[in-house]
């Protein structure tokens, strides 16, 4: 069974774009290890030939592809922490 170490937490935090404090890293490693040890019970079940249930709804999800009015650009940008010229502004991504 998987054991959660501080290295596991660091790896996962990187994947999730989370900066964690040292205290959080240590607490999470211990607590996630406990939660996963508890969740280990499901490994004992026989799930051969069982279809995974990815959602609880029906399958009627198709609709006509009809264009509808969209949120105006100014309104969409109104909540942005930093916007300029009709665009979101972010720190430099490429080069530097």
């Amino acid at each position, binding site marked *: 069974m*998987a054991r*959660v170490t501080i290295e*596991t*937490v660091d*790896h*996962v*935090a990187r*994947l*999730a*774009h*989370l*900066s*964690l*404090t040292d205290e*959080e890293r240590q607490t*999470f490693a211990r*607590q*996630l290890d*406990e*939660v*996963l040890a*508890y*969740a*280990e*019970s*499901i*490994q004992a*079940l026989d*799930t051969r030939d*069982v*279809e*995974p*249930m*990815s*959602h*609880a*709804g*029906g399958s*009627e*999800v198709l*609709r006509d592809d009809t264009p509808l009015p969209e*949120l105006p650009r100014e*309104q*969409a940008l*109104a*909540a*942005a*922490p*930093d916007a300029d010229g009709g665009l*979101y502004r*972010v*720190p*430099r*991504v490429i080069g*530097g």
Partner: protein
Amino acid sequence: MSSLTELSASEIARRVSAREVSAEEVARAHLDRIAAIDGALGAFLHVAGERALTMARRVDAGLAARASPPPLAGVPVAIKDVLDIEGLPTTCGSRILDGYRPPFTATAVSRLEAAGAVVLGKTNMDEFAMGSSTENSAFRPTRNPWARDRVPGGSSGGSAAAVAAGMAPAALGSDTGGSIRQPAALCGVVGLKPTYGRVSRYGLVAFASSLDQVGPLARTVEDVARVAAALCGWDPRDATSAKSEPTDFAAGLEAGAASPGLRVGVPWRFLAGGVDEGVMTAFGRALEDLRAAGAELVDVDLPHLPYAIATYYIVATAEASSNLARYDGVRYGLRAGAGDLRRMYGETRDRGFGLEVKRRIVLGTFVLSSGYYDAYYLRAQKVRTLIRRDFERAFAACDVIATPTSPVPAFRFGEKTADPLQMYLADIFTVPANLAGIPGLSLPCGFTQGLPVGLQLVGRPFDEATLLRAGHAYQTVTSHHRARPPL
């Protein structure tokens, strides 16, 4: 309570429709009560007083102008702060959305307003609906109206406390693993989690998309039925919303008042152990009362329920880690950290998210990560199928299944925060309905040591009508729902 705040939603709608009282007077009475007592309870994060009075006057003007009154004419409602209302703040109990005002309104809220309801404000909740006590709100604790040193349950703790304390006759909550039913139980009110797909999730901030469902809380089953009838319906803006026929739940209640022939399944094996003694006593009496009302009790077996919590905390955190990736400091809410993009993401999310949210993102990212996906996430989805099949089999022998809503009554602040697993285990009776996608109703069934106890009934998919009829039948032979907290 002043008299208007004592009235049920149904009675308010009747009086406002008959123009015996104006929607504005009703709204004012509830806003006054909020101003008088919410300082001590903390149910609301945002009270929208001016907006409420404007909307109430609009309802009054509409009634003066047309013949047929809307079904919820003048009924004040409190809205959990997970549902968007254009122009009002949505925080979801999180710092990361502090200051955010959405440019649209959730379908659930629009439907209530179209039915004549008047929104009073937004209620407190566990951050991103993750929690069972409302202690994970980034802003304030909400106190249980029955015992202020105890939690109201969660995550819809603000909505449950507001209804219990007479600040609103009805409220909306959201339920991913019990977040409507458990606080309803702990605060002594009625709460319904509808079938997955019954209520549109458009404008509901996503936690775990395959489990989330919006539903009503109120002080009687009749009121819950009335609000649910306005709430349910297909919405083209939510691809998972079901094309079910609109149902007048309230009109069907009387038909089953004596519930003759109603078969109530009880999973005795699953209930053995781990349930508070006082809760078990109240539950046992509730079963006797149901029998006295004409129901037949049947023993049912749901062999995979002991795996429900493990399955739930894998599925829910996996979906949450994906849904919460959108909080990146770019499009809305908080932005922290300068320099490069990675640092901006990391610092924004570190400062914006609370401990429980980070814990669940880490767990959810782990169970989806390379090398663990099959062992955890895929396997949990398969166990989810087994749990759904358990219910399908059980419903061949009964019409509803009864359990306590929560294994314990309201606990003290801080009692479960140190050990997340203990907090998760408190959801043992509520998460199965979310995993199976079926409806669940919680209603007051007595007290233990002065604290309310909830009876949960779950039913077949899209058969809210039977649940509500059974619940109403129970309330016609009992009076637990008429008890009010000492305020």
